[in-house]
């Protein structure tokens, strides 16, 4: 598929939910060793709530779907990562506002806005050992693949692979934000829990498309 409609977007969010549910303990575990151990709980709660809400709405405007998702996420999972994802979803919604169908380049815009929303709210930059270190390389790869004319299917798979690699690089980084930052130098060697969430998001796109 090279275009997605509202139903597809909702389905992708549902796959993200499945991914975080499957990886709940893994997220908890990563967050326990660099944070407060709640990431599994909050991500499940947020995506479950969003997924449940979206199953019930009759909305075709992808912008509104994402905006709604952001608001629900903000209400149900107001942790650091939850608030960042909520901010990202709202910006993503703004970026594709009014569209009932999105193309490859819209999907890039959407993911770029999502990442931008996280960046604006959290004031982190790539290299700070956050979810951005999974999302930013994924975006770059996606952009390049689309420019090279690859199908969305292939482009998004490559983006997912880039997220996995990007998340891996967080092991070498010193955390600068949130609770992981309290570990300072001791955060080196450990994978950022938020980056793992970034992977699960891209993975859902790759699996669905």
């Amino acid at each position: 598929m090279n275009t997605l409609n509202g139903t597809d977007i909702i389905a992708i969010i549902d796959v993200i939910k499945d991914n975080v549910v499957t990886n709940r303990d893994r997220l908890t575990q990563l967050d326990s060793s660099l944070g407060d151990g709640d990431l599994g709980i909050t991500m499940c709660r947020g995506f479950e709530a969003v997924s449940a809400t979206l199953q019930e709405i009759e909305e075709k405007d992808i912008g509104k779907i994402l905006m709604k998702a952001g608001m629900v996420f903000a209400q149900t999972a107001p942790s650091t990562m939850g608030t960042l994802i909520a901010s990202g979803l709202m910006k993503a919604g703004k970026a594709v506002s009014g569209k009932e169908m999105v193309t490859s380049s819209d999907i890039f815009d959407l993911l770029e806005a999502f990442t931008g929303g996280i960046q604006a709210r959290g004031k982190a930059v790539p290299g700070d050992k956050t979810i951005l270190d999974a999302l930013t390389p994924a975006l770059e790869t996606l952009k390049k693949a689309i420019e090279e004319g690859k199908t969305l299917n292939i482009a998004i798979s490559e983006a997912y692979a880039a997220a996995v690699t990007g998340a891996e690089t967080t092991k070498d980084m010193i955390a600068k934000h949130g609770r992981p930052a309290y570990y300072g130098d001791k955060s080196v060697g450990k994978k950022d829990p938020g980056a793992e969430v970034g992977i699960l998001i891209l993975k859902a796109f790759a699996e669905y498309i």
Partner: protein
Amino acid sequence: MRKFINDPVDFVDEMLDGILLAHPGQLACAGNNVRCLIKAGQLQKGKVGLATGGGSGHLPVFLGYVGEGMLDGCSVGGVFQSPSADNMFEVTKAINSGAGVLYIYGNYGGDCMNFEMAAEMADMEDIRIEHVIVTDDVASAPKGKEYKRRGVAGLFYVYKIAGACAAEMAPLNEVKRIAEKVCANVRSMGVALSPCTIPEVGKPTFEIEEGGMEIGMGIHGEPGIRKGPLDTADEIVEEMLRPIIEDLPFKSGDEVSILVNSLGATPKEELYIMYRKAYTILKDEGITICHPYIGEYATSMEMAGASITLLRLDDELKKYLAKPAFTPFFEQKQL
């Protein structure tokens, strides 16, 4: 787990139900949402509203300081989780009497971002908002990087003094000034002797083996500055108090209030043993204690451990600290 709970998912809401049932004359909720706690009764026209918010599991922090002479409202998050921005906004609307609202909260990523979002919402309804972010934990970042430090038991002093100032009908910028003055003069350090368990996780999210301790650990188990076998009470107090004194620095001739705080499981007996040593150290440094607070002021569920907070006083801070306050969790008559 050694806890009185029902379904872990209901932990926070059942606790809030209990609190509202126990103190109906003192607390109420905004927008019919138990997570949006406010002072019961009529708003006082023209008084600056004081709001806080943060994760559950730290009673009396945060909501326990809503009441006469202290805060007007508090948004309540899940255990160790930030409240949502729209709950913060709900509280904001409920306590704004026209003079604006001061947000006082600890320096945690989730809380900061959500209070920012809430302020954006309030701005759209023309409610004046100011922020004071508490960063009293000297263990969490070195001097010069105070902006990175966590807020811990020092919150109590900010609430108490800003609350007394607002009660005198000071305008928003004045209440903010006094709150910031407290922040500038308050320093804390904690030590943990046991982990604690988030009900939904069901087991401790970090470990401290029996007979061990972690100096400088945060109230959510954030890593401290030294792990080791348990020292004597006197040695521990020495190790906690020195960095506090040096950080500000507190100097001979200073007058301070001290807060010796239990993180939960540590009984008052032990806090007084710690106070005894703190008293001696401060006396030797030429620092006078004006009024000590000893007990549970900012906890971390059932964690065994303690924190020490020093606040340097001047006449103004002393005056406000001495004012009476009455909340369901803290009572003080005029000192």
